[in-house]
């Protein structure tokens, strides 16, 4: 057992029991709503704007928001705020661009994932398969969330990390295998609401200079000068080396919206008429949650000594608050981590069940993807792959990796580079061609890996000075993806008009292809 206050741990176990009971109840509710593969994969049309906006914000605000980023702020001071606050701005601006069309096209074609959406949008089975294979890199993301959960169990409950990751895996399996996307969104919505409360508390503690003389200015004064709020960049730090890389951080996160575990949430809203309300609520909640970085700054100002900076928020609670509150907040952060992991697991399960089996293997063998037996088989594959992916992720992090926010970008940077052009440009420009989408997808993915990983293996060192910064590398990948998609579309054949009408004007086209009179 790790060294943690026994009172905090006792209360923590109590709150954990309540939390488990809650997600089991929501998981059962999700199970009751899950009858088909489409229910499991998307929860299509099952939620109003408020629940879905909370779930979306909770999914975006991963373990990194509550652990990695405050850890960064603990180590670097106020300048970490440029990451904490700019990444959600990029993501939610990207969300504004793609949410409505994703919902429209998804419903129209029955798309069950973002790779599936791309395949339907461009009438391209090849693009669907490529996107699905690249999305397998989300496993790194799940690993980072399971790692964060393991640290939380150790910090708040005193449970050994090695056991904590298995408990986290078991918690996820308890409700996900039964309720799929319904359970995912239900639990995420509740967790989103709890996370708002935690964030408000952290902001209050920072604004009042909790535990530090002199309020907010006192917090700044207690920091070393290179961590204070007058220090904007640090040439020695690849993430904050200059304003250009901070701008690339923003650019890269616009493409983050293309992550399959985020895009599939849009399918679940009741109808496009709720989209504006969904956008409004999620944009406001989403920008608020990363204010959690202020807790890392406060922890440093208070002089809290900690071996693992990623655990600064739970330690801040343990050091400053009554045991009962610290324990409650620790379990709340655990729920934040779980809420991202579950969406990721559902997204990967659909790579196997929908993208590769139902929409690729079945048509390849001459079958009908809409056949009832195929759907039932896909539902079973969804559930089995949920179990397989969760266990694989837990095994992969039995030796705890360092630097959560960096690790997860090994996978998602490639996804951003590959998906951005076809997904974002293809949303606005009907003329975007299938050829352009495929070429941009492959080239941008390759470029990201070449510039990000090559120099780290001693190849062409110095050629791209920010290669260690995954955001800067992803930002370049994003730009290349979008530019290639745009330019190549100018010289290649667009998709047939009849297909584009279905994609871009579904409300005005009846199922037989003729215009409706709305």
């Amino acid at each position, binding site marked *: 057992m790790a060294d943690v206050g026994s009172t905090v741990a006792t209360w923590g176990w109590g709150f954990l029991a309540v939390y488990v009971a809650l997600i089991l109840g929501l998981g059962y509710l999700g199970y009751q709503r899950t009858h088909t593969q489409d229910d499991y994969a998307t929860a299509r049309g099952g939620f109003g704007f408020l629940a879905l906006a909370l779930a979306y914000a909770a999914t975006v605000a991963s373990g990194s928001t509550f652990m990695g980023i405050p850890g960064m702020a603990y180590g670097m001071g*106020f300048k970490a705020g*440029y990451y904490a*606050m*700019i990444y959600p*701005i990029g993501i939610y601006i990207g969300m*504004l661009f793609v949410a409505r069309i994703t919902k429209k096209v998804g419903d129209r074609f029955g798309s069950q994932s973002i790779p599936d959406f791309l395949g339907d949008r461009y009438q391209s089975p090849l693009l669907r398969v490529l996107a699905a294979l690249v999305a397998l890199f989300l496993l790194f993301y799940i690993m980072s969330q399971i790692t964060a959960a393991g640290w939380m169990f150790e910090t708040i409950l005193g449970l050994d990390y090695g056991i904590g990751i298995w408990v986290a895996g078991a918690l996820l399996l308890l409700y996900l295998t039964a309720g799929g996307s319904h359970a995912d969104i239900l639990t995420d919505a509740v967790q989103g609401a709890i996370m708002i409360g935690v964030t408000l508390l952290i902001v209050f503690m920072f604004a009042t200079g909790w535990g530090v003389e002199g309020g907010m200015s006192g917090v700044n004064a207690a920091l070393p000068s290179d961590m204070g709020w007058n*220090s904007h960049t640090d040439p020695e730090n690849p993430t904050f080396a200059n304003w250009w890389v901070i701008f690339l951080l923003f650019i890269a996160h616009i493409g983050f919206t293309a992550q399959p575990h985020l895009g599939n949430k849009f399918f679940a809203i009741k109808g496009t008429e709720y989209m504006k309300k969904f956008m409004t609520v999620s*944009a406001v909640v989403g*920008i608020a949650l990363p204010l959690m970085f202020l807790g890392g700054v406060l922890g440093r100002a208070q002089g809290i000594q900690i071996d693992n900076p990623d655990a600064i928020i739970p330690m801040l609670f343990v050091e400053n608050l009554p045991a009962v509150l610290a324990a409650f907040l620790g379990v709340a952060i655990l729920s934040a981590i779980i809420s991202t992991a579950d969406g990721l697991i559902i997204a990967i399960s659909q790579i196997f069940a929908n993208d590769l089996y139902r929409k690729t293997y079945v048509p390849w063998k001459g079958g009908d993807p809409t056949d009832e037996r195929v759907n039932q088989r896909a539902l079973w594959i969804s559930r089995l792959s949920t179990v397989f992916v969760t266990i694989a992720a837990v095994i992969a992090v039995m030796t705890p990796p360092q630097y959560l926010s960096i690790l997860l970008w090994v996978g998602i940077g490639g996804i951003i580079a590959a998906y951005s052009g076809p997904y974002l440009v293809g949303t606005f420009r009907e003329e975007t061609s299938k050829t352009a989408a495929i070429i941009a997808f492959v080239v941008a993915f390759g470029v990201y890996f070449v510039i990000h990983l090559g120099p780290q293996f001693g190849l062409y060192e110095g050629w791209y000075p920010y290669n260690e910064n995954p955001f800067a590398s992803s930002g370049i990948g994003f730009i290349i993806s979008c530019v290639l998609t745009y330019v190549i579309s100018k010289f290649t054949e667009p998709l047939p008009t009849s297909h584009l009408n279905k994609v871009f*004007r579904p409300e005005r086209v009846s199922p037989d292809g003729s215009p409706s009179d709305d």
Partner: protein
Amino acid sequence: MNVIQVLTLTTIGYFLFVTFWILKMEDYLQTRAKQQYENEQTRGEV
């Protein structure tokens, strides 16, 4: 300006953009899609 002030201004800019998008751009994009469809229909009839 310090980091907090820069981030405050950035966040205000973000909220202005979100407001503009939701109040103006969403409607514009839908109107544009409808017009394009009607133009195609007109061309088809000619």
